[in-house]
């Protein structure tokens, strides 16, 4: 019997409904109140140090988890004051606290370049003395050597950063909104990760009311699981790091590398088992077909495609026995996967356009109402903005930013900057908005486009490699607009809160980053993730930044037109054949996500997806499980956040104490 075709419209609509667990019926209210603003500022600034510290210890900033702690404190205060907290208020609190917690990370590049300028790699590639002063002071300056950001040496880099930040806010708010309207309102992409935040806020808001519902119970179960896991994974290494020179890791962070174990039967294959079992919770939430196809494709890539085809035909030619996952990944990337990945990224944009453009053609005739796929109409009282106004703001912000960069690197051809700003950025953002809409994560970074452009521009000065180019990605931010919609928070109140808190965070972020840097050099044994990753990142950065100099660089040779074309065309062929055989288009995103990827990084997520699909759905029923799992994931994030913040606080206090010898 012939398989019935389910159009992509029906497929996406069904998934969107599944994740919109309140059936799309909601009223919108402002979430911004004085108590929310002050609460967010107070708690956020308390947690910011822990977030920065975590990012250097485990590679995860915890900025997504920490705001839950603020929300729990807020709800407890509300209960004891015999008042209630609305979910709009709690979501606003989450957002503002998140911004406060993450505000230290915005100065991360200062610490990175202060490290990079004094690395042996930068010296051996002869670029250490050519790094411009608007990025980092000289390697032998007081500001760098004494590890202090509060020094006049840093004035120029910070001033340039602030100008960029102001223009960046203008651009990001407007572009995110436009992309949200396209992907969520018009295409009705499901945004599977958005309900986690939305349901977490709803669960906690209910605790301040008279009746507690299932949400609070499920949230508590998730929190306890998160507390236990967080203690084992983050707590033990952090606490033992205080007492010992080498911290104890119960499970090796961030992975256990089996690459050398499989090289006998799968040369050029990589398999590094990622030990973060928190990913299981994401497996519960993400669409099962995506997780499954992603894993199967990754397995096929590393155990069949790499060793049996690409290695045999000497396409992967730099591999040698005995290399670890990082080296094999680097060589495989240079030989083939980097070029292939660029091609498949572009296919995603084309597929998105192919799905959207026919809908746009139909819009004029459409009589659909808000909430239906193919309609751009907005729900009443959501606090929407005119699209033309947002477009204008984006053009102003981007124009100003291009002018700033032109001032920094006056000899770099302006046409390339304009190309990045007005061609690449919209394309890249649209790709990411769609991957967030479908997969809930950033599937594709298109990291090599501006490097290729430098190569093509034949601009030989090194300063362009350090300039903040307008190759931006607003797609990630579209998910937060979807969460606002799910929680019934007006867009206008969210924007007002963001603009009010920003000046305070700009100042406090730099002060906190200064103190974190003062505690210990970054990287060092106290910061294992940075210690593991930063040296290889420095080598990569040197390779890129010198790729024009000798005209014969590894990176330059790595980008091959035939491999880029292979990535682009094969991805289109996969998409097309899935359509011909009437298979779900979800599979395409799984296959594209998995091809060339390390399956070891997906095991925890796969485990979560299998448990969810074959046990939880049978146990609770599909509707109830899809109601439970975002709340469970929110609780888990909250538990991990609590442990992370607690242990980091202990570590920071212990390192702030000076032990005297008498």
């Amino acid at each position, binding site marked *: 019997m012939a398989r019935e075709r389910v159009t992509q*419209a029906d497929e996406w609509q069904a998934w969107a*409904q599944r994740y919109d667990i309140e059936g799309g019926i909601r009223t919108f209210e402002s979430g911004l109140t004085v108590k929310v603003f002050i609460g967010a500022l107070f708690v956020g600034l308390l947690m910011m140090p822990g977030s920065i510290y975590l990012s250097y210890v485990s590679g995860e900033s915890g900025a997504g988890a920490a705001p839950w702690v603020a929300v729990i404190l807020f709800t407890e205060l509300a209960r004891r004051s015999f008042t209630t907290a609305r979910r709009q208020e709690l979501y606003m609190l989450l957002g503002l606290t998140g911004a406060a917690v993450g505000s230290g990370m915005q100065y991360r590049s200062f610490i990175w370049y202060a490290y990079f300028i004094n690395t042996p790699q930068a010296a051996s590639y002869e670029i250490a003395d050519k790094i411009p002063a608007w990025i980092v002071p000289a390697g032998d300056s007081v500001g760098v050597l004494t590890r202090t950001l509060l020094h006049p040496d840093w004035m120029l880099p910070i001033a340039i950063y602030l100008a960029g930040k102001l223009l960046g806010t203008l651009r990001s708010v407007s572009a995110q909104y436009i992309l949200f309207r396209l992907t969520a309102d018009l295409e009705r992409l499901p945004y599977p990760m958005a309900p986690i935040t939305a349901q977490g806020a709803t669960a906690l808001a209910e605790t301040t009311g008279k009746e507690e519902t299932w949400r609070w119970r499920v949230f508590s179960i998730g929190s306890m699981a998160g507390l236990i896991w967080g203690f084992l994974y983050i707590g033990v290494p952090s606490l033992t790091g205080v007492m010992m020179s080498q911290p104890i890791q119960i499970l090796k962070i961030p992975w256990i590398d089996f690459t050398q174990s499989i090289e006998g039967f799968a040369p050029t294959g990589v398999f590094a088992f990622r030990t973060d079992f928190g990913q299981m919770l994401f497996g519960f939430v993400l669409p099962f*077909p995506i997780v499954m196809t992603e894993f199967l494709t990754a397995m096929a890539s590393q155990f069949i495609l790499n060793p049996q085809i690409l290695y045999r035909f000497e396409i992967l030619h730099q591999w040698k026995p005995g290399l670890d996952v990082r080296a094999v990944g680097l060589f495989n990337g240079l030989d083939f996967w980097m070029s292939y990945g660029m091609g498949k990224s572009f296919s995603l944009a084309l597929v998105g356009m192919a799905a959207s453009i026919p809908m746009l053609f139909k819009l004029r005739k459409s009589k659909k109402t808000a909430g239906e796929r193919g309609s751009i109409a907005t729900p009443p009282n959501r606090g929407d903005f005119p699209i033309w106004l947002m477009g204008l703001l984006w053009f102003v912000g981007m124009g100003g930013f291009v002018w700033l960069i032109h001032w920094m690197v006056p000899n770099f051809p302006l046409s390339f900057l304009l190309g990045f700003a007005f061609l690449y950025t919209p394309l890249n953002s649209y790709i990411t908005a769609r991957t967030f809409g479908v997969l809930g994560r950033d599937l594709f970074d298109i990291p090599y486009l501006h490097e290729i452009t430098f190569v093509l521009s034949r601009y030989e000065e090194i300063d362009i490699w350090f300039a903040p180019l307008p190759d931006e990605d607003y797609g990630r931010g579209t998910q937060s607009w979807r969460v606002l919609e799910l929680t019934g928070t007006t867009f206008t109140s969210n924007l007002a809160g963001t603009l009010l808190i920003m000046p305070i965070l700009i100042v406090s972020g730099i002060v906190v980053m200064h103190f974190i840097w003062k505690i210990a050099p970054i990287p060092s044994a106290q910061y294992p993730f940075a210690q593991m990753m930063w040296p290889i990142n420095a080598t990569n950065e040197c390779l890129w930044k010198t790729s024009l100099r000798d005209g014969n660089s590894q990176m330059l040779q790595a980008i091959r037109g035939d491999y880029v074309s*292979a990535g682009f065309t094969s991805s289109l062929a996969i998409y097309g054949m899935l359509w011909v055989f009437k298979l779900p288009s979800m599979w395409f995103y799984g296959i594209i996500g998995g091809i060339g990827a390390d399956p070891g990084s997906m095991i925890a997520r796969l485990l979560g997806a299998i448990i969810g699909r074959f046990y939880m759905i049978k146990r609770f029923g599909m509707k109830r499980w899809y109601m439970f799992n975002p709340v469970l994931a929110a609780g888990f994030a909250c538990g991990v956040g609590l442990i992370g913040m607690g242990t980091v606080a202990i570590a920071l206090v212990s390192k702030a104490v000076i032990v005297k010898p008498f």
Partner: protein
Amino acid sequence: MEWNDVQRTIIVEKMEKVASTIIIIGTFLWLFSVIALEGRWQWQMFSALVLTIGIFTAHFWEELRDTDSTEGTEGSEGSGDE
């Protein structure tokens, strides 16, 4: 039924097959370019062009069919992993 509606029905009926055929041709062309033409980028991009036409045709067909179909099918469950 008006002449325009008759034309439209015929187009919608044929369009799915046309899209499928173009996509299959594009896929075989790509395989051929990789296996027999040493994966030259020019031939691969030509295959990509054919595939792009096929995929756009497919989506235009979906939207046209969506217009013709009854409203009862909107938002129906039945895709994915059930």
